[in-house]
C-alpha cells in the first residue's frame, strides 16, 4: 500500500509510524508531507532525486517539530509549560524564547496593544467551532484583568509571568517555524523548494521557468481555491477565518479577538494574505491588518506591501 500525503495529514499528530511521506507530484517535483502545529505541512522540492526531497523534508520537519515541542500549549514537556509552571517567579529564559518575547513586545507596541500574546485566555470564553455559542458579557469581562503584555515583567532574559496569566505563541509560532526551517533548508541543499505550513509559505526560488502557483482558499470552502497567486521568492502568509467563526442571529463573529474589548474585531475581512520577505513579517502584517477590522485594506495600502483581501 502506498501512503499518500493526504493520509499523513489525517493521522494523529506525532504518530511515530508515518512521520513523513515523500510523493512525486510531477516529474522532478516531489512533495514531502508531515503534520505539525495542528496543520498539514508540505515541502515541494524541485529535484530529479527523490532522496534529496526526503533529506530536505526531514530537515524542515525536524525543525517544525522542534518549534512545536518547545512552544506548544498542549505539551507538558514544552518550554511554555515550564514557564506556566513558574508563574509568579522570576525565571531566566533561553535565547530563542527571549527573542520571541522581544518580538512579541515589539508587535504589542507597534499595534498599540492589539497584538497581545497574553490574550489566549479569551479562549476560555470563545470557542470558534462554527456554532452560535457566543459568550455572555460577564464571562468575557472576568477574563480582561488577565490580559495585557504590559503586565508581564520582561527584561531579557528575566521573565515574571503573573499568576493566572498565560502566554500563547500561536499568533507567531507557525510563521516563525517556517522561517527557521527555511534557514536550515537553504543551508542544507541548493534545490528550489517551497515550504507550506498550513498556508504559511516561503520559498528560496522557483523551479526553472515556472513560478510556484499558490492557491488561497475561499473563505467558505476547504477545497476550492479562490485565487491563485504566483510566488517566485519570499514568503506568503494568510490570516483568515475560513473555518473558525461563530454565527448567531446572522452575525458572523470572526476568530480575530481584540484584546482591548475581549470581543471579535468587527468587520474584519474573511481573509488577508500578505507577501513579504520573511514569513514572520508577512504573517504579522496579515494579523495586524485583520486586527484593524474595516481599516485592514487602508492599513496594508499604507504599508506598501503586496496583499490580497477576501471580504
Amino acid at each position, binding site marked *: 500500500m502506498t501512503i499518500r500525503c493526504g493520509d499523513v495529514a489525517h493521522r494523529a499528530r506525532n504518530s511515530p509510524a508515518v512521520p513523513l511521506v515523500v510523493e512525486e507530484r510531477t516529474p522532478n517535483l516531489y512533495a514531502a508531507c508531515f503534520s505539525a502545529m495542528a496543520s498539514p505541512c508540505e515541502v515541494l522540492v524541485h529535484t530529479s532525486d527523490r532522496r534529496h526531497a526526503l533529506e530536505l523534508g526531514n*530537515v524542515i520537519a525536524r*525543525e517544525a517539530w*522542534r518549534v512545536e515541542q518547545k512552544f506548544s500549549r498542549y505539551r507538558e*514537556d*514544552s*518550554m511554555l509549560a*515550564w514557564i506556566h509552571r513558574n508563574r509568579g517567579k522570576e525565571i*531566566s*529564559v*533561553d*535565547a*530563542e524564547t*527571549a*527573542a*520571541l518575547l*522581544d*518580538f512579541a513586545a*515589539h*508587535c504589542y507596541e*507597534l*499595534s*498599540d*496593544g492589539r497584538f497581545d500574546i497574553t490574550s489566549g485566555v479569551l479562549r476560555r470564553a470563545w470557542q470558534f467551532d462554527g456554532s452560535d455559542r457566543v459568550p455572555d458579557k460577564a464571562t468575557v469581562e472576568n477574563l480582561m484583568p488577565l490580559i495585557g503584555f504590559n503586565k508581564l515583567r520582561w*527584561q*531579557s*532574559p*528575566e521573565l515574571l509571568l503573573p499568576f493566572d496569566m498565560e502566554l500563547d505563541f500561536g499568533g507567531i509560532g507557525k510563521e*516563525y517555524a517556517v*522561517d*527557521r526551517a527555511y*534557514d536550515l533548508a*537553504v*543551508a*542544507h*541543499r*541548493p534545490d528550489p523548494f517551497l515550504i507550506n505550513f498550513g498556508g504559511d509559505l516561503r520559498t528560496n526560488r522557483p523551479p526553472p521557468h515556472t513560478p510556484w502557483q499558490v492557491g488561497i482558499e475561499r473563505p467558505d470552502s476547504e477545497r476550492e481555491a479562490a485565487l491563485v497567486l504566483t510566488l517566485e521568492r519570499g514568503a506568503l502568509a494568510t490570516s483568515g477565518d475560513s473555518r473558525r467563526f461563530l454565527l448567531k442571529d446572522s452575525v458572523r463573529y470572526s476568530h480575530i479577538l481584540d484584546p482591548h474589548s475581549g470581543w471579535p474585531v468587527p468587520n474584519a475581512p474573511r481573509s488577508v494574505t500578505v507577501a*513579504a*520577505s*520573511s514569513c*514572520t*513579517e508577512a504573517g*504579522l*502584517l496579515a494579523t*495586524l491588518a485583520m486586527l484593524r477590522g474595516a481599516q485592514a485594506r*487602508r*492599513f496594508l495600502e*499604507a*504599508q*506598501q*506591501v503586496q496583499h490580497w483581501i477576501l471580504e
Partner: protein
Amino acid sequence: MQLKREEGGVRRRLIAASCALLSASTGRGEEVPNSGIERALNDWSLDSALAYYHEDGRVQVIEPVVSVSKAYGDGASVGLNLTFDALSGASPNGASPSRMPQTFASPSGKSFAGGKHTYTTAPGDLPEDPHYSDLRAALGADWTLPLERLLTASFGAKISYEDDFYSGSADASIARDFNQKNTTVSLGISYEADSLHPIGGTPVPLSNYALFEKTGNQSKDGAGLLLSLTQVMSRNWLSEVNLSLDRFSGYLNDPYKIISVIDAGGDVRGYVYENRPDSRTRRSVYLDNRVAWERSSAGLSLRYMTDDWGIHSETAQLHLQWWTAERDKYVQPTLRWYRQSAANFYTPWLFDFTTPELSSASSDSRLAALQALTYGLKYGIKLRDKLGRESSEFNVRIEYYQQTQENGLPGPGALRGLDLYPDLKAILVQIGFSY
C-alpha cells in the same frame, strides 16, 4: 496612554523586529532548562589561529593566538585571549645606504646580552640589524554586559610582555540602541601605560651613536576616545561611522633607530640616535559599509587619520565574500590601499652642518610618505557535526603586502644612484580554526 503611530511605519519596524528575531540563536537541541549549571556549560566558543609573517629579506614573525569566549543568552559575554609572537630576522636600523661598508654594534635583541655584537652592511645596501629577535606574550580579557534593554556596557583589559617592553591597557564603552535596535551609538574610552627597558639602556636622544650615552628606563602613556554610530540601513545593508581621538605622551622614540649624518658630498660622517616629539595626538574618522546578499557579501571601508606630527593617512579596503550553494565553503578576496604623508620631522639623513639646531628627527621609514597595497585571499570551510549543524570553521588566509616610499629626497653626491628607499614586500599566511 498610547501614542498614535504613523501607519506606514509599522512595516519598517516590523521588518527590523523580524530580523532581530530570525537572527537570534535558536538553542536548537536545547532542553527545557533544569539547572543553571547545565546552561552555564553551553555557548563556549573557541577561536585559534597561527599566523606566519615574512618580510622579504627581513624579519619573520610566528604568532599563535587562542581566544575563548562565552555568550550568555541575554547578550552578556566574557572572553579571554592569549597571543604569542616570536619575531626574528633583520630590521632596518635607520641609517642610509652608503658607497662604503658600514659597521654597527647591535643593541637590540637577546644577542646583545652575551656581549657586543657587530654587523657590517655591504656598500649600497640598506643597513639592517640582522640579530633582531623578540618574544611577546599578551593576555587580554573582555566583558560585555547589558545594563538594561537598550543599554550595553563593555570592559576590556590587556597586558603584554616583551623583553624590553611592558604594556597594560584598559578600556570601557557604553552602547545604546535606538530606533528598534536599528541604530546603535557607542562611546568608549581607553587608557594605556607602557614601560620601556631598551636592551643596553635608553640612548640619549640625538646623541652620537659612537659615544654610547645611555640613560635608564622610560615610559609613555596614552588615552583615547571613540564615538561610534552603527545604522541598519536595510535588511541587508549595515553602515558604521567612527570618530576617534587619542593622545600619547612620554617617551615615543624607537630606541634602536639611528640616523646617518652625512656631509655635502654624501659621505657618512657618523650617526645619531633619533628623537621624536614627546606627545602625539591623532584624530581619525572611519566609515564602513557592509552589504549582504543571499550567497555573497561585500564591505567597503574608508579611514582618514591625521596627527600633530604632520602625518595624514588614508586607507580604503574592499572585501567580497562568496559562499557555495551548500553554504559550507566560502572564498573572500580583499584589497587594501594605504597612503600616508610624512611626519614633519622625518628625514632620511642629517647633514653635519645642520645637526645642532634640531629638536626632532627620525629616519624611520614608517614615518615617511608611503603608499601600500595589500592583496588578500581567505578560504573557509564550515564543518558540521553528526546532526548536520554547523559546528566549527577552518580557514586559511594569505596576504601579500607591497609598500613603496614616496617623494624620497634625492641623495647628494656619493649617494646618487643608490636605492635609498627600497620597497618592502611581505607575505602573511594564517591558518585559523574556530569552534
